[in-house]
């Protein structure tokens, strides 16, 4: 039995970051990862999807360039080479993490760990099992795609985000069940590869967690690219015959439709991996592990971070939770602060937001003022031919506190950090209005919004 100060179970963005910081703080640390280091995000989530989305962006760019006087023969795609590039990216990042962990003198156990209530963890590697123990345990087991109980589903070869990258050729047609963040991103990837894409969304709009205007713009864009979007539809049954899948879907008004496609991608959400903690009777909130502000579970010295505790299931949230948990190992020092957590969707145009949405503001009865400024009025957008999109700034009436920012358009996933900074450093609309933005730049839309909100709009 090897004793550690800290044992981290789960090597995703939450776990490995926590392990690195714990080691930096002088803790003897062990990291248990059943699969590859980097977790879902690195291997099956963020990184591969953003890599492929880059291809989509290039393809769309080339097509757009046709009427800019830039001519090419018609395009051909090699899925194999595309996936090869994806794998290279993943491999590079994965070795980076390994190197960091070694440098941090962190023992990595590459096997499935089971956590016991006496701070012991059993790790099974191949047919060997190792016993390790830790003064403190950090649970970072993450989550996996949820599979809804549609009848006939298990007799069909469907894909989830875990398996979609195993396809060997570009499907003729595909149905994506779920119009959420992941659904629309994959819709964007496949439509750029000329696949006939259909999105079946249970709710009344795609990306429901985000701003309504944002989903309008994205919907219009997807349709323009030939994606069929069916909202308020539910998949009632699925069947497969000679590798063609047929879905029976019914709308909330009872209208029934039948879709026959080559592939099905399920993107209806995720569920936490809790098998590793089955022995511990931790207090749960729904399916997720319950934690307090200091990320402690109901069991003393046991912490939990990342998708397993629910909330915003984003890599950077998991990492932030991991760091906070490590700070609190020897006593509650730092409360987890979710105030400034940006959310990004890497479609084209992209969608990014931080702070509260308008819906949330209305629901909490907060007196706010809002200004929406379209990219079509921005010099850089016009020059780059990326005029689709807008920025929306919500401020508190009394002090001009920045309550929320939503941006739709090219590069907004990078620009959102500027607004995050204002929230984090508690700048107000006055400072935002006064701060000089580079010209020409898309960021200027933020300055316009801010100035309009204090009644001194320049170009509005």
């Amino acid at each position: 039995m090897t004793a550690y100060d800290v044992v981290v179970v789960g090597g995703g963005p939450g776990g490995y970051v926590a392990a690195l910081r714990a080691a930096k703080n002088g803790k003897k640390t062990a990291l248990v990862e059943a699969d590859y280091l980097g977790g879902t995000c690195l291997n099956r989530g963020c990184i591969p999807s953003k890599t492929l989305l880059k291809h989509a962006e290039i393809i769309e760019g080339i097509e757009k360039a046709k009427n800019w006087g830039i001519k090419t023969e018609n395009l051909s795609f090699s899925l194999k080479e595309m996936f090869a590039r994806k794998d290279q990216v993943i491999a590079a990042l994965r070795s980076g993490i390994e190197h960091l962990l070694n440098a941090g003198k962190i023992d990595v156990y590459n096997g499935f760990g089971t956590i016991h209530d006496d701070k012991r963890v059993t790790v099974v590697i191949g047919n060997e099992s190792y016993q390790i123990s830790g003064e403190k345990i950090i649970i970072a087991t993450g989550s996996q795609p949820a599979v809804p109980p549609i009848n006939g589903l298990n007799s069909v070869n469907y894909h989830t985000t875990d398996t979609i990258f195993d396809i060997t050729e570009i499907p003729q047609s595909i149905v994506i069940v779920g119009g959420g963040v992941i659904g629309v991103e994959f819709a964007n990837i496949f439509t750029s590869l000329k696949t006939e894409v259909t999105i079946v969304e249970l709710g009344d709009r795609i990306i429901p967690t985000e701003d309504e205007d944002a989903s309008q713009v994205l919907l219009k864009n997807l349709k323009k690219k030939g994606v069929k979007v069916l909202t308020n539809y539910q998949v009632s049954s699925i069947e497969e015959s000679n590798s063609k899948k047929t879905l029976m879907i019914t709308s909330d008004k009872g209208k029934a439709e039948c879709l026959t496609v080559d592939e099905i991608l399920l993107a209806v959400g995720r569920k936490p991996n809790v098998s590793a903690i089955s022995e511990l009777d931790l207090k749960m909130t729904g399916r997720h592990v319950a934690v307090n502000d200091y990320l402690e579970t109901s069991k003393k010295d046991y912490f939990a971070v990342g998708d397993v505790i629910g909330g915003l299931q984003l890599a950077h949230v998991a990492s932030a939770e991991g760091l906070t948990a490590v700070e609190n190992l020897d006593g509650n020092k730092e409360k987890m602060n979710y105030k400034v957590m940006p959310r990004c969707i890497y479609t084209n145009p992209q969608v990014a937001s931080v702070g509260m949405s308008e819906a949330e503001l209305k629901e909490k009865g907060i007196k706010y003022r809002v200004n929406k400024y379209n990219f079509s009025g921005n010099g850089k957008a016009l020059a780059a031919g990326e005029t689709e999109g807008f920025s929306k700034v919500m401020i508190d009436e009394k002090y001009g506190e920045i309550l929320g920012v939503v941006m739709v358009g090219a590069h907004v996933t990078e620009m959102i950090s500027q607004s995050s900074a204002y929230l984090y450093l508690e700048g107000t609309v006055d400072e935002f209005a006064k701060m000089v933005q580079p010209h020409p730049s898309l960021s200027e839309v933020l300055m316009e919004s801010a100035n309009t909100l204090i009644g001194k709009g320049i170009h509005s």
Partner: protein
Amino acid sequence: MATEVVMPKLGATMEEGTIISWLVQVGEVVEEGDAIAEVQTDKIVLEIEAETTGVLLKTLYDEGSIVKVQEVVAYLGDEGERVEGLENQSSGAESEPIVEQNKTFAKVADVLEAPAERGNKIRRTPAARKLAEENQIDLRKITGTRPLGCIQKIDVVNFLAENAKKITPLAKKIADDHGIDYKNIAGSGLNGKIVKADLDSSNSINEKVEIQKSTPSEKRIPFKGIRKVIADRMSQSAFTAPHVTLTSQVDMTNSVRLREELLPVIEKVNGYRLSYNEVILKATAHALQNHPDINVSLEKDEIVYRSNVNVGMAVAVPNGLVVPVIKNADKLGLAAITEECKSMGKLARDGKLLPEQMQNGTFTISNLGMYAVDGFTPIINQPESAILGVGRIQEKPVAVNGELAIRSMMTLSLSFDHRIIDGAPAAAFLTELKETLENPFRLII
């Protein structure tokens, strides 16, 4: 013609002189330049010299009296000339007293204002004090490095560097808005930076930023002018005169009929429409005649029995009320009373009442009959000693000699100043008034 002999000004600082002795007796002849009297000033003894040759007609001050410079002390003139009636003539122009000139000197020297009281007893150099004040730092928190712990500028500079308070723009705005001195709030942000939350937690801001219920701003008008005058008089009356209010139910049926019959008659006479108010006023005046002990005023230590009956009539005007007075109401007929009441009422509402039209009232009637008011406790309109509150006239079932009948009933409320009017005489007056209204024909007697 007699010439004045004045106390001469015999020295720059001389204000007055004492007559030590008269060197010449009245009636004696005096040559020009001869000494007439010896005078003592604060410095020396001098002589008053005759400016002309003549006979000393009269001396105004005897020996030993102090006389102001320029005052006439004696008269010279011809033999036997009379000098009565000249005594109190003031002599010559007033001289500008010396003290007056010194005032200009004070104006010229710039007067140093009293140095601000130095509260704290901390030893520090001016430069240190200046820097500390500019940064609102309490010098008590700094240890001086000069001899005797005297604080010098460098000490303040170092102190500033150590705990310069960092604060986010938002938190600063909130703090300034609530006038919070955030210097002594512990910041929870990175290395002590104050963030919005710190302000909330220091609960100096009670209302949550989220739910801000702004109360509608109330309408405010200044408490002055006519409103203030009325207020003062009301409280004066209420707090000096012990008020007692008697109420009585009056059967106005007959008066109502009287009014209906006389209305067209009077209208033909002077175009004014008779109302119950005038009927009641006439009845009140009539009753006051027979009850002089109600028609009284208290003036310091005397009770004044008013000779005439001047009945005031309270009229409501924008943000206040005025009381035009119908003089000798007991001697006027209903037509005259109606005319006066109506015209004065209009003047009052237009704010054109003359002061004399509101003076010398001996009794006041306050009529709230147009509202759903029966009895109330009117406040005496001092210096009067009683006031009649008139309620509404309303059909009511009443027992009239054993049988039930519908009669126009009205409540009268008589407040009286119990210092000079007792319950009995007040009750007697109210009873007569009631009987008069119930049998208005008595008014003709």
